[in-house]
């Protein structure tokens, strides 16, 4: 931003004019100097200040010269004022920076070569960029502290490495409100510890090592597992729930080492829950379906993937000819990508001609886009939010932090009521503004009734927390018996998940195509076994062995969540991209290619096969997805009026 490009100072537009290192800009009143600097591309090193927390100004790294001020001022706690002139490069500023780094390194151990943080450590980076070349402090006089304090089963603290930036204690004070970490002792003896040595119990502990500017707080799961420069990083979405927190998947030697947060202010606000974060290593499970196989006359034989697809097509054709389309069913899962589910529902409706398609066992009567009208970030804009029962926050834990932020920083009234309570349990709601209602899928009916009740006097918007990472996408693209792509009507509709399996067990369904079913099959093993025993054809595309793969007549290995590209849609309808973080554990092509080839064998040629091409077809067919683009929110209510 050039100095002459900004309007003159003193103009009355609610903005203030500020100049940093000769670059001028206008910013809203109340903007911190450090944020202005970032905007101007000027780097001010900071340890204590954190974009998601209030300033504390204890590390003194960001001291800058402000004209007319007698002393250097902390940029992290100084607000831009009209006509303010800041210098971050003067000799006294750079000397101070060097001095602060010398202080911070005084008692810091020289264990960078074995530190988890080495390579992505602010202390290392700033010392390299701004620090003195050596220490003037006698190494023999360094203070020594405990280097491995177990704070919980998840977090370990190296007290020597701690530079006392207060981020972790402020995180617990401001972000989660749990106040589990405290400062103990005084002066040079100050320590971070839990009160009375109690272990941490928060479900958001995993964020601590990430906000720690050095290697003091470490993940026990990741401790000494990798050096940052050995990690391969892929942008992805946390697979553990429907909230859709953005993550970086860090892998080494073809194994997932950790999930790191990837700040999306619209969704996670950079926080992950421990359930999601520490599920990382579960993706290294080697118990996988690896080779295509066909079962004929009781014997299972490994085959090539094309042979498996041909075999599946032949047997499906036989059932179609002998028993009709109504005897075939198709099931996906809520961990499939939108592209896979899109092709799967096309296979069911356009090729096989069956109405029996679903992605999970439970049915969803009366499904519609109105139950997803409230966006996650809009929780902060509501005047009040009503949460039904404990389930929404149990299923999508990071929602708790958004609710707390809304309540503490935006003054939103948050009411947590029993899921069967009525409007009278809420008390006096604010007269103005939007009222948000959040419920889980099990209590959809009740949420609908409550919304109708509140809707008589208020502007009410509802958010249903869907199940699994792509439970929402599966519904949007129409992997449902009672709703087509984009919630289009489907006439009489077909059987829902559990009904399909029951019908198979009763002999009414003769052939079943299942993709990714291990997600729900393990929990319904008995029903799956009864159905499989009666089915003539069971085509299974899956990653993990289980009751389905063991009973399959045709088995095709799938690509796991982190092994493929595609999109998933979170509970509020945000369409987010997955990028392959690991090579596939099988040589078979990815699911969209398998489905495209299967459709071709069944006579429907010309289907897109690559996830990107499938995505183009999908957005052309569902306008809300076209409007959402990459990372935007599919809003079917808006799309309908556009």
């Amino acid at each position, binding site marked *: 931003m050039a100095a002459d490009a900004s309007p003159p100072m003193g103009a009355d537009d609610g903005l203030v004019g500020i100049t940093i290192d000769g670059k001028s800009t206008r910013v809203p009143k109340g903007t911190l100097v450090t944020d202005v600097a970032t905007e101007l591309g000027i780097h001010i090193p900071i340890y204590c200040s954190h974009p998601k927390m209030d*300033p*504390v*100004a*204890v*590390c*003194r*790294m960001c*001291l800058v010269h402000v004209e007319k001020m007698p*002393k*250097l001022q902390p940029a992290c*706690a100084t607000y831009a004022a009209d006509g303010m002139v800041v210098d971050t490069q003067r000799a006294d500023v750079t*000397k*101070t920076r060097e*001095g*602060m780094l*010398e*202080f*911070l390194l*005084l*008692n810091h151990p020289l264990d960078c070569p074995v530190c988890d943080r080495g390579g992505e450590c602010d202390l290392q980076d700033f010392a390299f960029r701004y620090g003195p070349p050596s220490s*003037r*402090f*006698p190494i023999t*006089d360094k*203070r020594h502290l405990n280097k491995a304090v177990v704070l919980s089963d998840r977090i370990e603290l190296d007290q020597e490495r701690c*530079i*006392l930036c207060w981020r972790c204690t402020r995180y617990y004070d401001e972000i989660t409100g749990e106040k589990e970490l*405290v*400062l103990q*002792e*005084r*002066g*040079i*003896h*100050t320590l971070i510890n839990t009160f009375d040595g109690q272990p941490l119990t928060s479900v958001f502990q995993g964020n601590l090592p990430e906000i720690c500017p050095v290697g003091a707080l470490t993940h026990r799961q990741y401790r000494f597992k990798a050096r940052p420069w050995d990690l391969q990083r892929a942008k992805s979405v946390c697979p553990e729930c429907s909230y859709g927190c953005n993550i970086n998947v860090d892998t080494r030697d073809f194994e997932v080492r950790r999930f790191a947060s990837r700040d999306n202010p619209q969704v996670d606000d950079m926080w992950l829950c421990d359930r999601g974060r520490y599920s990382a290593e579960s993706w290294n499970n080697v118990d996988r379906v690896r080779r295509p196989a066909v079962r004929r006359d009781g014997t299972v034989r490994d085959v090539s993937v094309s042979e498996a697809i041909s075999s599946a097509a032949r047997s499906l054709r036989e059932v179609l000819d002998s028993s009709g389309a109504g005897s075939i069913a198709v099931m996906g899962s809520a961990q499939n990508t939108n592209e896979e589910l899109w092709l799967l529902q096309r296979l069911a409706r356009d090729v096989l001609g069956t109405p029996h398609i679903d992605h999970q066992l439970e049915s969803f009567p009366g499904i519609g886009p109105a139950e997803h009208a409230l966006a996650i970030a809009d929780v902060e804009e509501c005047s009040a939010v009503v949460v039904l029962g404990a389930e929404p926050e149990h299923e999508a834990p990071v929602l708790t932090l958004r609710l707390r932020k809304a309540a503490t920083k935006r003054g939103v009234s948050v009411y947590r009521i029993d899921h069967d309570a009525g409007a009278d349990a809420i008390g006096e709601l604010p007269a103005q503004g939007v009222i948000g209602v959040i419920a889980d899928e099990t209590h959809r009916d009740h949420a609908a009734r409550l919304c109708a009740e509140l809707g008589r006097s208020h502007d009410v918007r509802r958010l249903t927390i869907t199940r699994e990472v792509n439970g929402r996408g599966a519904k949007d693209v129409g992997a449902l018996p009672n709703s087509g792509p984009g919630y289009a009507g489907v006439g009489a509709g077909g059987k829902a998940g559990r009904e399909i399996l029951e019908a198979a067990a009763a002999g009414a369904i003769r052939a079943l195509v299942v993709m990714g079913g291990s997600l729900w099959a393990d929990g319904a093993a008995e029903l799956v076994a009864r159905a499989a025993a009666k089915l003539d054809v069971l085509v299974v595309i899956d990653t993990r062995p289980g009751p389905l793969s063991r009973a399959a007549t045709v088995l095709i290995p799938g690509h796991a969540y982190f092994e493929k590209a595609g999109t998933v849609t979170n509970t509020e309808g945000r369409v987010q991209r997955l990028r392959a973080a690991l090579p596939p554990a099988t040589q078979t092509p990815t699911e969209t290619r398998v489905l495209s080839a299967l459709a071709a064998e069944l006579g429907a040629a010309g289907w897109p096969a690559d996830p990107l091409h499938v995505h183009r077809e999908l957005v052309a067919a569902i306008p809300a997805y076209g409007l959402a683009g990459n990372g935007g929110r599919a809003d079917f209510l808006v799309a309908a009026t556009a």
Partner: protein
Amino acid sequence: MAEHRLLTKDFGTEGLQTLAVYERLGGYQGLREAFQRFTPETLVDEVKTSGLRGRGGAGFPTGMKWGFLPKDVFPRYLCCNADESEPGCFKDRKLIDENPHQLIEGLLIAAYALQVNIAFIYIRGEYFDQRLLLERCVEEARAAGHIGNDIHGSGFSCDVIVHGGAGAYICGEETALIDSLEGYRGQPRLKPPFPAIKGLYGKPTVVNNVETLSNLPHIVQRGGAWFKSIGTEKSAGTRLFCCSGHINRPGTYEMAMGTPIRELLEEECGGMWKDRSLKAFQPGGGSMQVLLPQHLDLALDMDAVQQAGSSLGAGAMVFMDETTCMVNVSMRLVDFYHHESCGKCAPCREGTYFESDLMHRLEAGACTSEELNTLADICDNMNGKCFCPLGDTATWFVMSAYKAFRDEFEAHCGAGSCPVRSGTAQLVTA
């Protein structure tokens, strides 16, 4: 001009610590007069007229501090800062020990002026007996109707709560005092907001020193203009000076502002002990810069001492004779700050550790002369860069001593032991 007794005029009277004796000597008349003759607004104006400046160290005009409170925000709080912990400072303890009701009366007058209904006395943890005394006096005053609802029919109500600290120097800093009073770890808060806007429990708060408040009964009874006539133009009234060190009569002396320091030393303190000569003195307690014999003719006036490069601070005078090793004194003071640093900000926490390490090696004669530059450099990196003045002041004495007694510092380098105490260095270099 000898000692000017205002706050200390009744000291020594038997039973002054009891309400009966205090009232017999005219006690609590100031409070009654405040109710009769002043509205809260005119009382604030009267204190502004008096020119009373804070006696805790910074010397900020009291009336102006009171004027910063936002008009319509209630409740407000008043805290008496009795966390006297400055090295060499013991005047607040004396004021409490000798005349506790004078403080309580002053506190109530301030509470009336500020429309405060709950006033706190935050007293240093180590002043255990004084805390018990104050608690007893507060009960006495409450029973007599000086504290409570509708005091003396004025319609003004105020309660007084005595709270003991846990022994931290930093809790004398007003925001740390507030944090400690709220039950948190005593550490300074980020300013702004200042306590006048957002202090105790997030409400407008005034924190005043014991001596400041003890002046109020006299200002109310005899008028701001009278008070202003004592002392100098910009430093009105008297001050209690805590004199210690190598002098014949250590103690607390109340002097009108503007009296030459020499008079305090020679007349009140009885001069240097053992017929030795003065080498240096510290005029404001452990935090302040060293002054030299040629500064003895300075007036006891906040601005005059400031111009000489030091400060009257909290009124502690530490006199050092010719046998004193300035490196040793610096080391002891640095150790104090190292011990008392709260640990909140990096330059104070780590800087005092570095400083202390260096000073110990210097005093033992184990430093190189190059390390003296390091000392000056780390002090420069601390001074003015710390979160609160504690870290800044940890450098003031040592740097002023280094400047004034450079030869002595250099004589320590590589000497293998303290050359002053082993008699190998010239004793007085300045």
